């Protein structure tokens, strides 16, 4: 993941160019391209979307239309430890909603936001397929199963 400054450095632009070229600058591959670019930068800030638009010769409005349509794409940098709460049905009926509420309260951020210190970001997602462990919270790569509201503090403290 490259650290992103205000404007794009020539290196960053080269990275975007290379990704687009690996898809023959074909706008039909926009979704795959955005995936790769987001993988590289961690998120899709305005400058990056504009650079992709230039490479693919499509309007940046269209790119933003796509980015704002799909929840997987984000224009905000994620926290160092992104937290996702599964809100799939299995997790919901086993009580994932109060867990999300507790996380919002504890971290004092809303879904889609990052804590001011850049440590945690909070997201909800639909079903990671670990329904047997419902309700599930994911921090970074680690999956916590059968989470209860009072476990939250303990889980977060692992990362502080």
């Amino acid at each position, binding site marked *: 993941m490259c650290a992103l400054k205000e404007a794009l450095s020539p290196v960053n632009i080269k990275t975007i160019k290379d990704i687009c070229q690996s898809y023959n600058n074909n706008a039909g591959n926009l979704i795959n391209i955005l995936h790769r670019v987001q993988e590289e930068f961690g998120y899709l800030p305005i400058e990056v979307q504009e650079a992709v638009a230039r490479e693919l010769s499509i309007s940046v*409005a269209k790119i933003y239309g796509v980015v704002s*349509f799909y929840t997987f794409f984000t224009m905000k940098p994620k926290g160092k430890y992104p937290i996702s709460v599964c809100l799939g049905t299995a997790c919901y009926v086993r009580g994932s909603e109060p867990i999300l509420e507790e996380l919002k309260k504890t971290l004092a951020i809303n879904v889609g936001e990052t804590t001011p210190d850049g440590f945690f970001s909070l997201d909800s997602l639909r079903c990671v397929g670990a329904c047997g462990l419902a309700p599930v919270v994911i921090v970074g790569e680690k999956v916590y199963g059968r989470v209860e509201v009072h476990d939250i503090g303990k889980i977060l403290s692992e990362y502080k």
Partner: protein
Amino acid sequence: MEKIKLTIDKRTVEVEKGTTVYQAAKQIGVNIPVLCYMNLGHLGIENRPGGCRVCVVEVEGRKNLAPSCSTLCTEGMVVKTNSPRVLNARKTVLELILSDHPKDCLVCAKSGNCELQELAIKLGIREIPGEKYSEMSTYRPDTSPSIIRDLDKCVMCRRCETMCNKVQTVGALNAINRGFMAVVAPAFERNLENSPCTFCGQCVAVCPTGALTEVNHTNQLIRALADPTKTVVVQTAPAVRAALGEEFGMEPGTLVTGKMAAALRTLGFDYVFDTDFAADLTIMEEGTELLNRIGKFLEGDKDVKLPILTSCCPAWVNFFECNYPDMLDVPSTARSPQQMFGSVAKAYLADKLGVKREDMVVVSIMPCLAKKYECQRDEFKIDGNPDVDFSISTRELAALIKGANISFTSLPDEDFDNPLGESTGAAVIFGATGGVIEAAVRTAYEVFTKKKLDRVDFTELRGLEGIRSASIDFNGTTINIGIAHGLGNARKLLDGIRAGMYNFHAIEIMACPGGCIGGGGQPYHHGNSEIIKARHQAIYREDAEKPIRKSHENPYIVKLYEEFLGSPMSEKAHHLLHTHYFDKSKQKQD
């Protein structure tokens, strides 16, 4: 063509294969209400996302209701357009749309001209269930020099998106977000001014609600008219006279030149002039520039830029400044007629009248929204004072006339004032696609060949096809001419030129489909392309009726050069009537 028989509301209809249920119903006088659907047949423009679901009908054997705008007729189909099931669904869907729409109709710019309002009346909506606890989707309002966006009123019909992308290929607008917050907007919800928008106004022309409207300059105008220290001068563009009558219930295509002049005088303008005069002037400058370039080319000059592109259309200028920065030296440097008029008025006329520049207010009546932006460009100002103070649209003029209690239809025909009111048939056809280049050919031919034209009607340059071309024999020299209207067609033509596909000598480009008659400031066509066709015919009718039909024969133009400018492309002309272009491809940022 294969025929199909079907039943609509118990009546048998025979239609051609490929006809939609909506069209078939229309054939027997059943007007199924639509909202998102729009079909501008003559221009090949269609918007049919099937999104509003207002046009649903019941089709026997189908489990859910079908959108009539996008359901094709099939043999033996049985359709009900007004069963209780359909009526309830249609009404419920409209209530839903209205539940997310502001109810400030009384003060809405679109009131009385709003397709959503019309539907609400037609379907008899009296209340919106659950209004108390219904959330509305709200967005930041945006005002640009030409266009106001109030997206709270957007119904996601996607017409503007179609115009901006498919038709104009400008790419300023796109559907963004999803679900309840989905809306059409520029990238990152920036203001239009920070987008590649050309202010062509085609989005405004098709918006069924008050989500997209023009910036209104009528209050400024009224203040100027009321100010006794100001000399208020008005110019009216050629396309206005072919459409203004529609606002007063007159048949589309009615020419109202004389009534318009009378109305303007009644409104209190000190001088009522005609942009057509400046159009003739444009031909003198642009035509000379064309001939200069062709002359050099024929002499073997490899550096000469051909084809020459017309530059009368401000949206087109915005478009190439933003998209073709490498070709900035290709278009003619001639200013648009609006701006030529402004600079002549404030330099020549003001002097003649003994009025100080800052005491003269030049107003233009335009079929166009980009003109509002054009007259604010810095290069058209002297010490901050613009050559044209502001531009109002055909629609705004109609509203002014109505507001002033003027009975437009019963007005007597009046003439424009002189010296800037006289014009030729060549100037009138500026209002339709192909007109500028035809006018240029009429003059260039005679100047180039030094022979008199036998016929002035170059019908090969006329029509509504998106891209047209013709070769004109200039007494042995063939001049190849290209024409595009609609920026999407312009892009195709330009890309072709870049790729070396064409060998045109001159190209006319108009941003709006149909040319200025289809401009973003014209009375709403509400998706009826017959209206545009009628205006198109009216323009050529006016030309045919004009006693003088070649710009260089306009006696006041001749006089202007004698008294003031010297000759076309003279230093003075260059200073007052020409301009230069800027690379705007990179400056679109917040």
